[in-house]
């Protein structure tokens, strides 16, 4: 008896979690829903765990159709009704900045939400969406097709932007994330990503080594540039221009230059 009471008390106090009945019956007014409502209800923006709610006692037989109403939805499905989950960054090293642009806020909000969820399931710590200043463009045109300059009309286009930052992500995972977003690209949304790659320690030494390795090739290239006077003569330049390979670059249409006398 006492346990029954405690259970019912818990059910009252705990955050209501949608059950299958929510999804199945249409007359039922949802107590939870659209993500916008839940946003206000949740307390911490960086919650990484779902609230654990004890399953309500089953009052019906598993075989009866009413049983379906008591079944708790899977956690992943419950999460859809809540704010997107996030991973915490340990080192705060920026890995990727994704900028989303759109003319419609609704689509933008939806897709940035989707991007955050995708990042969570890829184990990427994502921050945002940061609302960047919107871009406002305006055009003023005469209303008439001919003269009557005094009556004009204004048109405008607002581009809304959101920034999602990934921190501590492995470059490969970040690429997978970006590819996933591109695969499921939403209509009317543009994406732009800045990706950072990091080198290991001792970069100076490796760069030096790389430079030394390339020195032979580079010297050949530098020699062609003719930056240093006296290194290349006019005859050599004309010979280079007349060379078949360079002529082929211009479709072989330029006339052969005559040799200098």
């Amino acid at each position, binding site marked *: 008896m006492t346990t029954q009471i405690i259970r019912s008390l818990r059910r009252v106090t705990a955050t209501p979690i949608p059950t299958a009945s929510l999804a199945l019956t249409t007359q039922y007014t949802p107590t939870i829903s659209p993500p916008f409502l839940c946003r206000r209800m949740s307390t911490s923006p960086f919650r990484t765990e779902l609230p654990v709610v004890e399953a309500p006692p089953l009052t019906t037989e598993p075989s009866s159709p009413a049983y379906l109403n008591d079944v708790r939805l899977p956690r992943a499905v419950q999460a859809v009704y809540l704010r997107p989950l996030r991973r915490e960054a340990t080192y705060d090293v920026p890995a990727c900045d994704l900028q989303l642009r759109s*003319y*419609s806020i609704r689509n933008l909000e939806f897709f940035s939400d989707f991007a955050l969820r995708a990042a969570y399931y890829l184990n990427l710590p994502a921050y945002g969406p940061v609302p960047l200043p919107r871009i406002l*463009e*305006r*055009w*003023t*045109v*005469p*209303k*008439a*097709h001919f003269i009557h300059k005094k009556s004009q*009309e*204004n*048109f*405008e*286009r*607002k*581009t809304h932007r959101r920034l999602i930052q990934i921190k501590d992500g492995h470059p490969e995972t970040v690429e997978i994330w970006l590819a996933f977003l591109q695969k499921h690209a939403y209509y*009317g949304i543009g994406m732009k990503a800045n990706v950072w790659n990091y080198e290991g320690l001792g970069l100076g030494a490796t760069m030096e080594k790389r430079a030394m390795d390339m020195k032979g090739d580079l010297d050949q290239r530098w020699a062609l540039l*003719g930056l240093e*006077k006296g290194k*290349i003569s*006019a005859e050599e*330049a*004309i010979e280079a*221009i007349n060379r078949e390979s360079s002529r082929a*670059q*211009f*479709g072989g*249409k*330029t*006339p052969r*230059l*005559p040799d*200098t006398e």
Partner: protein
Amino acid sequence: MSMFRAKKLDLGCFVNARVIRDHTKRKVFAEHEAERQALRYIIRNMELPARTRAQAQLELSQMHCYTRSTQISNRCTEGGKGRGVLRDFKMTRFNFRLNALKGLIPGVKKGIW
């Protein structure tokens, strides 16, 4: 010029003589751009002999006027007009207004502020 013009119509937008002419000029310019730049480089290169540079000058001035970038001018894709074309939409102001009011241009609305 007829020698540059495509034998078959290769345009999908509004077409009239001036639109076709401008389109032809664009194609010819793109085709000869590298050549023009090469000649310009030779002309400006002080290390090359004067004779070569003078010849390149001659060569450049003798190229067809269609190969010049200045021959290209923006035209309206809806009506072929040459004036009052909005660069952002490749349309004249009036066509832009009609399309914007119909809601055919993404994101463009009547400006109210």
